[in-house]
């Protein structure tokens, strides 16, 4: 791999636990290379997060000079992982081993809080 691609500029990447779990996720209609043997229907996971005052203060300072708000990026990433893991938990309870057609949605329900929502179709593959 080219060193400049993996270099310092990509410093802020959280390795997700999601890909390590037994449940396979894709956002297309199938799991390539596998056959779907059973459908379990819709599974979903959601979480609502509020930012905390520390990141907010830092962000308002950052608002002057512009640039990435790392605190927010991290917060949203963690929340999305939480929503995904809830969805995965639901799929696991159904006895599925993959989720296809995964979609993500974001909405702001209250001032300073965001809802992250993940949904997909739980299936069993072979």
């Amino acid at each position, binding site marked *: *791999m*080219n060193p*400049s*691609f*993996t*270099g310092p*500029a*990509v410093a802020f*990447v959280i390795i*997700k636990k*999601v*890909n390590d779990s037994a449940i*396979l*996720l*894709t*956002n*297309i*209609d*199938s*799991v*390539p*290379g596998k056959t779907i043997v059973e459908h379990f229907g819709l599974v979903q996971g959601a979480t609502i997060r509020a*930012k905390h005052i520390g990141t*907010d203060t830092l*962000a*308002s300072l*950052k*608002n*002057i*000079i*512009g*640039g*990435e*708000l*790392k605190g*927010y*990026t991290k917060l*949203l*990433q963690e929340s*999305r992982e939480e929503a995904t893991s809830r969805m995965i938990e639901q799929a696991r309870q159904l006895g599925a081993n993959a989720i296809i057609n*995964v979609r*993500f*949605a*974001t*909405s*702001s329900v209250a*001032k*300073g809080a*965001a809802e992250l929502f993940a949904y997909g179709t739980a299936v069993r593959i072979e």
Partner: protein
Amino acid sequence: MLDLALFLILLTIGYFAGRATEHRHYKSILLREKASLHLPTVTSKMLPEVDQIAKSFLVTGSCVISIDYFKRILAVLRNIIGGRMTAYETLIDRARREAILRMKYEALGSHIIVNTRVETASIFSSASQNGIGSVEVFAYGTAIKLKKKL
């Protein structure tokens, strides 16, 4: 008087710091985009031959980027006369490209990313006094690893 001085100071800091950050960010984006050209990212769902596929998994990348003080004031002025908001265009462009690069970074080792979707949200915006000042871009797709490279 003090208010005006503070405003001008913020404006100056915003202009220079913002321009420097943007320049640096674009430079790094271009560099990394060039380095990641070997990994095609497509929006279609077209798949390679089924028997060639070794593995497939979901990859995601996200980024929250804020606009600087100078550009925010520029946007307020622009709101009066209307027209193209160049100040915001670069903001969103940077956020999108960064998110896609992060997604690609997560897909290291695979050969193609299919069905890439990019979502933009301006959450937490109501908290700042001036309304929209930062955007969140979230990119996701399915990375496919082939048994042997085409």
